[in-house]
């Protein structure tokens, strides 16, 4: 896709579209956003990820103009947006609660914003119909919001926010209520719109797969702070903390103490009576420093015999198997009782599986498979 060439965040001269400068938002005593600094660039598809209550909606609401920052400055295209009221911002937001107008039909809900900019009747009609087609609600145009299903309401809310084709679109969990197929289709539609119109998207999602698919960059948040902001693959491959590694995808975390070895290699002592693990890391660790080795299950190989040339190999017993259709995850219990997950793709029929419960197996991975994290 575009990601190979599109990377304005790496260009020191690039001007961000949105800039959060040391923004703090407090509700009374409670700090919802904690000294947050962030640049989002034009044409980005920026995904916000984080647990419930971490402040995603609050960030959106500050951009849309419904909350003002307690401290710090938010700039849109270089201008401080604090004095600009919501109706004067070239920003549209899709609300997490949809906020559809109950007294208006689906059609009128979508047309609502268009009618505000003195467009001609024909223009409005054409645009509304285009939006209805996009979210596949042509048949429901004349229903009221209470006469359609939850997923359909979500699509109306999405269509309403897209209709005005703003410079910046804020989507607060736009696809959560849709089935997988429709969600994927809509994701591609959004990416398509984004490529055609150059709109900047900020999207909140609880679905990390979605963030991985659509986003140019992902921000992982926790308790009002940014834990990491990076491209989806970097977030996945090189998380900067145990929190991020654990939040995105499945991961094994092995705690131990590092001993430097050679240029960028480390020995990790992790359990009594077990051979040390080896890992490579560009981050520096001191001798004896506590560290966490994070390894994705799909990077752990499972075999009956000890692989001859493996950098890391541990023996265990199959404790449980989770069959996911295309994949199987093996939960292997080591001698000390800890569990390590290994994932393999199911190229054979399930009955021909090589391992079963209680089998003794070897798990192995390379020195570069995992990431060594300080905290």
């Amino acid at each position, binding site marked *: 896709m575009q990601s190979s060439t599109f990377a304005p965040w790496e260009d020191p001269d690039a001007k961000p579209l949105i800039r959060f400068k040391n923004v703090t938002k407090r509700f009374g005593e409670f700090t919802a956003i904690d000294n947050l600094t962030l640049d989002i660039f034009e044409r980005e598809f920026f995904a916000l990820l984080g647990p419930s209550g971490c402040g995603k909606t609050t960030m959106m609401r500050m951009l*849309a*103009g*419904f909350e003002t920052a307690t401290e710090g400055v938010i700039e849109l295209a270089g201008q401080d947006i604090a004095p600009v*009221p*919501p*109706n004067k911002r070239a*920003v*549209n*937001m899709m*609300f997490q*609660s*949809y*906020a*559809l*107008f*109950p*007294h208006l039909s689906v059609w009128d809900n979508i047309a*609502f*914003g268009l009618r*505000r*900019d003195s467009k001609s009747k024909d223009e409005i009609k054409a645009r509304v119909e285009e939006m209805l087609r996009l979210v596949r609600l042509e048949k429901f145009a004349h229903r009221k*919001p*209470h006469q359609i299903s*939850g997923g359909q*309401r*979500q699509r109306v809310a999405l269509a*309403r926010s897209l209709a*005005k084709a703003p410079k910046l679109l804020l989507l607060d969990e736009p696809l959560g*209520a849709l089935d997988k197929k429709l969600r994927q289709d809509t994701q591609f539609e959004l990416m398509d719109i984004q490529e055609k119109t150059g709109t900047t998207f900020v999207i909140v999602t609880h679905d990390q797969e979605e963030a991985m698919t659509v986003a140019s960059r992902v921000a992982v948040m926790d308790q009002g702070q940014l834990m990491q902001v990076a491209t989806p693959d970097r977030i996945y491959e090189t998380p900067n903390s145990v929190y991020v590694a654990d939040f995105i995808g499945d991961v094994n975390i092995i705690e131990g103490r590092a001993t430097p070895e050679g240029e960028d290699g480390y020995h990790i002592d992790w359990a009594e009576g077990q051979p040390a693990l080896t890992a490579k890391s560009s981050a520096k660790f001191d001798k004896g420093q506590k560290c966490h080795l994070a390894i994705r299950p799909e990077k752990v190989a499972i075999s009956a015999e000890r692989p001859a040339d493996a950098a890391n190999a541990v023996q265990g017993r199959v404790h449980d198997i989770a069959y996911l259709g295309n994949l199987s995850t093996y939960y292997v219990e080591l001698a000390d009782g800890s569990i390590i997950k290994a994932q393999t793709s199911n190229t054979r029929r399930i009955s021909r599986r090589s391992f079963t419960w209680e089998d003794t197996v070897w798990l192995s991975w390379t020195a570069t498979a995992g990431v060594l994290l300080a905290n």
Partner: protein
Amino acid sequence: MSRMSWFNTVSLTLGFAFLYIPMLILIVYSFNESKLVTVWAGFSTKWYGELFQNDAFLNAAWVTLKVAVMSSTLATILGTMAALVLVRAGRFMGRTLFSGMIYAPLVMPEVITGLSLLLLFIGIGLDRGVMTIVLAHTTFAMCYVSVVVSSRLVTFDRSLEEAALDLGCSPAEAFRLVTLPIIAPAVISGWLLAFTLSLDDLVIASFTSGPAATTLPIKIFSAVRLGVSPEINALSTIMIGIVTVGVISASLISKQALVRQKRDEQAAARG
């Protein structure tokens, strides 16, 4: 539903009889042929006919209607504005005091409200007439309107207004295009309530009316002191009719709105 015991049936019957037999008698006798109120002499609508010939009554009826329409409209505007401030404007200095003061006239004896208004009008040198009755009725009816409207506003989802702003409405447009249509049932039933309250008010009107303007309740009251006539029965029957229609439509509108609101809320919860 379980069947009612005989005791419940009897108390219900007695209660309703107590409430409605007087009115029923009045209505029945308004169709009496005889001039004597206590003697039934056959069915007739002649008193209604005569009523419409009586200029004094018609005049009073016209004044009453004018007062009711003007005061309920004013009360609805002011009461809705007060409700908006009370429900929306978070905590501000004197909020509790303000809301208490808005509701106080609800429990204030009418004689006191009437008397104080009379003193005010004399004090500022306002001649008593239609205008003063309108002002007086507006004052006490706006409390009722603000109670009705604020109970609706409490459950109004603010994000609807935010969505309207987000889509380019000015705050005034957001109110007109989104908030007002949604709370309209409460506003209308507030208006109807204010209208019926104004229609049948005697106490406050008799303090604030002048020789130039007499309302129907005052007219009836002074006419009855000279003796009950079937004409007055007819007039009262008409008023009972109007008030009944007003109260029933107010309650129907707010009930319907409640049903719709429940349905919307359930829809929102499902969504």
